[in-house]
């Protein structure tokens, strides 16, 4: 299976990078972009796992390493 892990800053946390990107987009004429939040995307290749096993393992590594729970949250998708 493949597990996709999306790590994003919690809504309460200011995102300086997203803010800078938003400003750049406004300067480029994309005034309709109200806000940008920058995150991280990981693909975990997990051969020989079931969907449940892949989700469990991805959750464990997201919690321990990929995301910092002080500032970030994560979402996991599992696919063939």
């Amino acid at each position, binding site marked *: 299976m493949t597990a996709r892990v999306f790590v994003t800053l919690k809504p309460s946390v*200011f*995102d*300086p990078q997203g803010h800078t990107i938003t400003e750049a987009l406004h300067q480029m004429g994309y005034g309709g972009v109200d806000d940008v939040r920058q995150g991280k995307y990981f693909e975990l290749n997990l051969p020989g796992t079931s969907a449940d096993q892949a989700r469990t393992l991805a959750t464990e590594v997201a919690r321990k*390493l990929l995301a*910092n729970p*002080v*500032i970030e949250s994560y979402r996991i998708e599992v696919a063939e």
Partner: protein
Amino acid sequence: MKFAIVVFPGSNCDHDAYHATRHVLGQDAEFVWHKETDLKGADVVVLPGGFAHGDYLRTGAIARFSPVMDSVRAFAAAGNPVIGICNGFQVLLEAELLPGAMLRNTDKYKCEYVYARVEQTDTPFTNLCAKGQVLKIPIAHGEGNYYADPETIAGLHANRQVIFRYVSPAGEVTAAANPNGSLDGIAGICNLARNVVGLMPHPERACESALGSADGKIVLESVISVFAKA
């Protein structure tokens, strides 16, 4: 007394810490590679500045899992003094030896002198300072924007764990004096037991007036004085 200076792949202020402790302050100092677990009988551990593991993933996130960190954790748990400077502070946060996390600076990478006010003097790294003393010390970081949730921030203040704050040269906490957007202008904190201190400014780079400032020397002299008294 002896300083152990931990070297991660990407540390680049390890030699600054070595120079300050050994050559300026005349103490014993030894490097400890991050894959080692022996702290060489040191009395103090320094986690130096730099870019451990290239700052990949998050600053300090990979370094946290280096073998040496188990020894540092045990050393800290036994009440021994540990100081994390800049990237070392970031490692201490990721290792949960200190509360909170670092965000990117609100605008850009900053390399400049700042003024850090000593908020508390009952730590091994500030005991020679006067409360409210303002130290001119350099910073050099892109991720020094200290963040914690409101409960954690309230706890830090209630337990007097905020050790350094960014201030104006006159010693006032102002928005203009805050170089990175840190909550409450927090530049350095300690743990509840007060033996683990992390700060973004580089005291080890401000130990000789010929290099611009000697204000940082008192941070290292403080911990030396603890052992001189013992």
